[in-house]
């Protein structure tokens, strides 16, 4: 053995020339490794694959011409983008490759931004400068960001776009849910513009809860809120029987009576289901409150709580006091102060109390609470942070009760504790945590929500948008959200509008709900007399809507107060009410307007002028529009409806002034036919 090695050594390095030659050969070979490594690189492999793929296509010539070999790079110093993704994703800009489903050759779907102007990693994250699949997409080198799974891609839109976008429903919904489900009561979310995200769920105060409901109901609710109402936003804290017993004991013992709530009802709840249903309907309770129908479907709005089993919850005397004036119990409530009279209160309370579920409390048997149980209940109420959401007398709202989420989108994976078997990525962690918080530890306080998989994805999307880059972007690169204004109407009328909770449905000057029309320019839009009649007895403008203006039973004085305020204050600078008359248009112009209405513009597709022939169901009925709207408003509306009410479904028809004037003449001629007819129409 030794002999053989020795002779081999002699043969190779015996003389210096031979040794030099051999070393040179080895050296040359090692030098060749670098170009060979380059030659066999992944991106070159993909570029070869791309060329092979396009060779037999009908559009091969164009694609060939667009193709550029070698490493490609998008360099955008302003955005700190150095992206080489297009080295492998060669067909990114080729719309004609739409049928290709093989990566990395798919064309990019159409989006409002161009890849040359934004690069790739700005939205998709990952390592833009990398030129291998593993380094670009995953964080093999513990670089900043792995690629963002496509299902959360809208979170990247949210870094710059702080308000809702029409093309990002998932992001919009996620942001909405963070407020609507009160996540931000416990988790502080500071937005990049410096403001703090506010909750919109309005959890009730529990300081006077014993007036409203029984300990049995509180117990059942604490155990399983969704058993009472499928739509409840209150999460399930998975309480033991004993804990729920003690917390309910504390809440009842802690409650102080509110004058008025406990007064003996002036009228007994009346059992008249037909009258009750009709009053419930007339008052449009369903605009805000949902009720489960026989088929199990929820019908109604989600501004107020679901009422399917409300009879099992509320005490009759409280309900009557609430119906008489909800603001006495909760000054901030979204519920309007209907001016119901005693018989109406009796009918409506009787109707609502009949909505009971005898199973709900059948198995709840609670003994008299002991002082120890009440003390223990108080401790639990503090521990679970109930006061983060609810006002509870004697318990302070805890500060920073749960981790702040203002930069959650940048939380390093190394700081996360994962469950066995789950992917070690931040999006997976966030989604799993929302889906089942207690899976990460039985002792955790975060309760169980009933989000659908789609809701969880949208929440994760919204949370991932809260990251360092979003917080540090210069304002020039961001698109600000329209902030909710804190507009409040002034004076007596202002007080009245708060009492009637107009802002729960209507928006004025950037403040309020979106269920009903924006009233910012209502004074320019309608005629005074119509508004007076409408407030006294709101009739149906849009037959197909199930959510409508309720009747508040206002006094004449209140109606005048409101009308004066609306007519004077809510005026558009673009409309001069008196610039066009309300009558005496030439007959020829009215006729022309009629022809345009039924012919050129086919308005009868959506509107009704003649109830005998027209059936259009989308826009408001126009049979009496001449008694309702101002001529100048109609003219302005014909010219550009979106300018007067952004987002309206009425198309802008780019009408000439002549057409718009003729249509105005025709419409303004559609008057209410005198008092008696108005009264009949109301029925």
């Amino acid at each position, binding site marked *: 053995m030794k002999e053989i090695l020795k002779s081999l050594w002699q043969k190779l390095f015996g003389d210096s020339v031979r040794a030099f030659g051999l070393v040179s050969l080895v050296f040359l070979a090692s030098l060749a490794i670098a170009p060979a490594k380059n030659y066999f690189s992944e991106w070159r492999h993909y570029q070869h694959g791309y060329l092979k793929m396009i060779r037999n296509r009908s559009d091969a010539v164009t694609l060939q011409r667009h193709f550029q070999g070698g490493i490609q790079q998008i360099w955008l110093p302003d955005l700190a983008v150095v992206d080489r993704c297009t080295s492998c994703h060669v067909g990114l800009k080729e719309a004609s490759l*739409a*049928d*290709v*489903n093989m990566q990395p050759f*798919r064309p990019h*779907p*159409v*989006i*409002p931004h161009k890849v040359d102007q934004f690069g790739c990693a700005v939205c998709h994250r990952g390592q833009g400068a990398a030129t291998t699949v593993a380094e670009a997409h995953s964080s093999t080198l513990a670089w900043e960001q792995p690629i963002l*799974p*496509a*299902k*959360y*891609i809208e979170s990247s839109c949210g870094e710059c776009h702080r308000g809702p976008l*029409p*093309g*990002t*429903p*998932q992001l919009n919904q996620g942001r909405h849910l963070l407020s609507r489900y009160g996540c931000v009561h416990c988790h502080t979310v500071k937005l990049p513009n410096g403001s703090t995200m506010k909750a919109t769920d309005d959890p009730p105060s529990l300081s006077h809860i014993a007036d409203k409901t029984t300990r049995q109901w509180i117990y059942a609710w604490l155990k399983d809120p969704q058993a009472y109402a499928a739509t409840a936003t209150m999460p399930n804290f998975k309480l033991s029987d004993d804990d729920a017993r003690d917390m309910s004991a504390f809440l009842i013992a802690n409650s102080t009576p509110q004058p008025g709530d406990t007064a003996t009802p002036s009228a007994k709840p009346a059992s008249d289901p037909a009258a009750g249903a009709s009053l419930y309907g007339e008052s449009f309770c369903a605009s805000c409150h949902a009720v489960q129908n026989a088929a199990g*479907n929820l*019908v109604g709005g989600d501004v107020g709580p679901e009422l399917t089993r409300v009879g099992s919850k509320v005490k009759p005397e409280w309900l009557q006091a609430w119906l008489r004036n909800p603001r006495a119990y909760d000054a901030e409530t979204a519920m309007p102060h209907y001016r119901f009279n005693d018989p109406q209160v009796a009918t409506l309370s009787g109707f609502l109390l009949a909505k009971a579920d005898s199973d709900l409390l059948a198995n709840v048997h609670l003994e008299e609470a002991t002082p120890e149980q009440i003390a223990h209940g108080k401790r639990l109420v503090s521990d679970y942070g109930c006061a983060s959401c609810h006002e509870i007398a004697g318990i302070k709202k805890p500060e920073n009760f749960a981790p702040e989420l203002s930069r959650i989108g940048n939380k390093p994976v190394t700081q996360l504790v994962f469950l066995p078997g789950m992917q070690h990525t931040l999006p997976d962690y966030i989604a799993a945590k929302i889906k089942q918080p207690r899976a990460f530890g039985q002792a955790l306080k975060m309760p169980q929500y009933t989000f*659908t*998989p*789609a809701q969880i*994805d949208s929440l994760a999307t919204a949370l991932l948008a809260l990251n360092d880059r979003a917080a540090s972007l210069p304002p020039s690169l961001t698109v600000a959200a329209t902030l909710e204004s804190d507009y409040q109407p002034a004076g007596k009328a202002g007080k009245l509008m708060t009492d009637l909770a107009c802002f729960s449905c209507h928006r004025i000057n950037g403040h309020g709900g979106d269920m009903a029309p924006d009233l910012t320019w209502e004074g320019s839009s309608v005629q005074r007399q119509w508004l007076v009649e409408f407030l006294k007895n709101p009739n149906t403008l849009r037959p*197909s809507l*199930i959510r409508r203006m309720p009747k508040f039973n206002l006094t004449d004085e209140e109606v005048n107060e409101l009308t004066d305020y609306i007519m004077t204050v809510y005026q558009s600078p673009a409309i001069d009410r008196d610039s066009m008359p309300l009558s005496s248009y030439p007959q020829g112009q009215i006729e022309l307007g009629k022809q345009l209405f039924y*012919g*050129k*513009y*086919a308005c*009868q*597709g*959506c509107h009704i002028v003649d109830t005998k022939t027209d*059936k*259009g*169901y*989308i826009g408001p009925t126009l049979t009496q529009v001449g008694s309702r709207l101002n001529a100048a408003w109609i003219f302005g509306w014909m010219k550009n409806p*979106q300018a007067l009410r952004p*987002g309206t*479904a009425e*198309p*802008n*028809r*780019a009408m000439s002034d002549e057409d718009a004037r003729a249509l105005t003449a025709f419409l303004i001629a559609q008057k209410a036919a005198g008092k008696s007819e108005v009264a009949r129409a109301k029925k």
Partner: protein
Amino acid sequence: MTRPPLAIVTLLAAVLVTSCSHKTASAPLPTPTAFGAAIVETSGEKQTAQAGTALPQPLVVQVNDDQGAALPGALVEFSAAPEVIFDPANGLTDSSGQVTTNVTLGNLAGRYPLTALTTNKARKKIALTIEETALGYQQTLGRQLNEQYCERCHNPESTVERVSNFDNLEIKPHPFTDGDTLNKIGDADLTAIISHGGPALNKSALMPAWGSTLGKSDIQALISYIRAISDPPYRNAGPVYGPN
């Protein structure tokens, strides 16, 4: 002398194999107690969702016996393109003969055929294939515009919240799923109808002109949505992601 080491080696190898394969082994399939004759869709077919997101409604399939009656206890397995997630991916039919699964579509826009398999008495697999559509950015925007401006007339289905205007119109608009008609109208013509109204193509004036309300990119988004939900599929509707 050689036997004991061999046994040990075999044992070690077996342990090694089982421990290594543990990671990739999926949960065992439940054992069926019944075998059906047919598998049918109950609900959840032809839905659309944004790419990578869960379908709004779960997919429900039903296994029937040879009498056509619902059969409890039959095994149903779901499969599709690798990116599609079923939760759960298999299950036994419940007392009403049904299995319900939540489906999350793949990350790329396109059509996703889903397969539900069950085993019949002859131990042969019988399959049901249904199709769902994943929408890209443009189509999602188109869907939003459709809900805001178009659907009230073009969708004949009424819901409690949204009453359709379809029946009120003298000349009926085409539902956007009506591929038989809409697939024959090219993008340029659709753009013309949307921008300039029905009369642009000698069609009903009840279709108003939207060219001053919707921008060019809005109209493109709408068309791309119409193409995506067309039934039968539009020829250039994009790729189909089958199992591979």
